[in-house]
């Protein structure tokens, strides 16, 4: 779920950079407080690669297919590291493959970064007591949050000459098309965290 280049006004794109910059600065300041910030870099990079690869892979959901976002998974597994990881992944996708957008990198960083932090918050608050429920909510909730932010940016960014009712219908169709992804990511994060809790609990901060 990326905003492509050329869709939104340049003022909104610049505001997106300012927002993402502030979010990244906050995340980096939290990371610097860790005893050894560089120790988590290999895992963050590996998950960034998985995020990168998985967003290029389609999961068959009849009658079509959907692309995984994995913002919830990144949030649960990386915490504050998810923000720089997502920004790096989006930048590499834009410059190496032309996916997403370079001018919209800041907005896309907010579309995926804020839901990742929401998933981190859900897992932190409920991961110990109700791990399955927390995993499901983190996976699905991140997609719902990303959809809401995406829809907000599109409504703000489309030309004023277009009539609002058509925009709303198009967005409703877009959101409906992503309902399977909400469920799919919830199931994927649930199963994945169950496996990791059993076999590699050190990979989860609150396993």
């Amino acid at each position: 779920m990326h905003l492509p280049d050329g869709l939104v006004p340049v003022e909104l794109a610049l505001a997106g950079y300012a927002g993402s910059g502030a979010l990244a600065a906050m995340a980096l300041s939290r990371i610097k407080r860790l005893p050894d910030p560089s120790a988590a870099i290999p895992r963050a990079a590996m998950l960034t690669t998985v995020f990168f690869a998985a967003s290029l892979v389609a999961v068959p959901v009849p009658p079509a297919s959907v692309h995984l976002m994995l913002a919830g998974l990144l949030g649960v597994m990386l915490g504050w590291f998810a923000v720089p990881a997502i920004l790096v992944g989006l930048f590499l996708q834009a410059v190496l493959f032309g996916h997403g957008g370079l001018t919209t990198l800041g907005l896309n960083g907010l579309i995926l970064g804020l839901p990742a932090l929401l998933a981190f918050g859900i897992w932190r608050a409920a991961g110990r007591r109700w791990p399955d429920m927390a995993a499901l909510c983190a996976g699905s909730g991140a997609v719902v949050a990303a959809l809401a932010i995406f829809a907000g940016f599109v409504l703000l960014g489309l030309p004023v000459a277009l009539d609002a009712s058509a925009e709303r219908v198009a967005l409703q169709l877009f959101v409906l098309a992503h309902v399977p992804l909400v469920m799919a990511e919830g199931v994927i994060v649930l199963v994945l965290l169950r496996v990791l809790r059993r076999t590699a609990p050190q990979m989860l901060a609150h396993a």
Partner: protein
Amino acid sequence: MPERARRAPALSARARLAVVFGLAFAFASVQSLAALPALWLIAGVSVLASGRPWQILVRLRGAAVLAAGFALVLPLIAGEVVLAHLGPIALYQEGALAGALIAGRLLAIVAMTLAILSPVAPFDLVAGMRGLGVPTLMADLALLTLRYMDEVAAQLARARLARRLRGGTTGWRALPDHALLLATSLIRAQARSEQLWAAMRLRGYGAGLAAPAATLSARDWAFVTGAGGLALAVIWMGRSL
């Protein structure tokens, strides 16, 4: 390899990144259809000058499909002034103009980005990011992500092949299988990533990125200044035409 050496980029990655960002924002600011040919001309010249036009055109496929989607769908759903009737379907003027503008800007920005940055090696790209002030932690993340890409892609491909050979299910029922596949790849890649990171640090990784960025050459300055002038001209054209 000799072919690559002959085509080694003469311009620094830092200058290329600065130019790409400047031109991309200038292109994005264009509000007039009359300015689109100028954008396509700049993008076309960049693609030809890159020396690899076919590779770039292949990588443009995704953006081209998206652009076609905007150009075809918006005239059908958005607007009030009817431009033409195709049987029972009306084409609206506002949607057609917005679709053409969005598609035109999108294609020009993606083509120009790929053309200017495709000759740059991944390490140079990361060093260029660092030179533009991107924090070291993010530069490290970018470099390791590129380093692990082949590793993780191979893991995922092996796991997917194994699943297919075992006759895995499809559709909704395959979701838990996809999650298991991802979990297995993550666990294997985690161990390997830590070994790679340790080996990279032992070989002195970090010194290159931590060193102050080299000063821009006269050629870099000429490139950045020329592209800056072009970006200003595009902004002026896009707002006044």
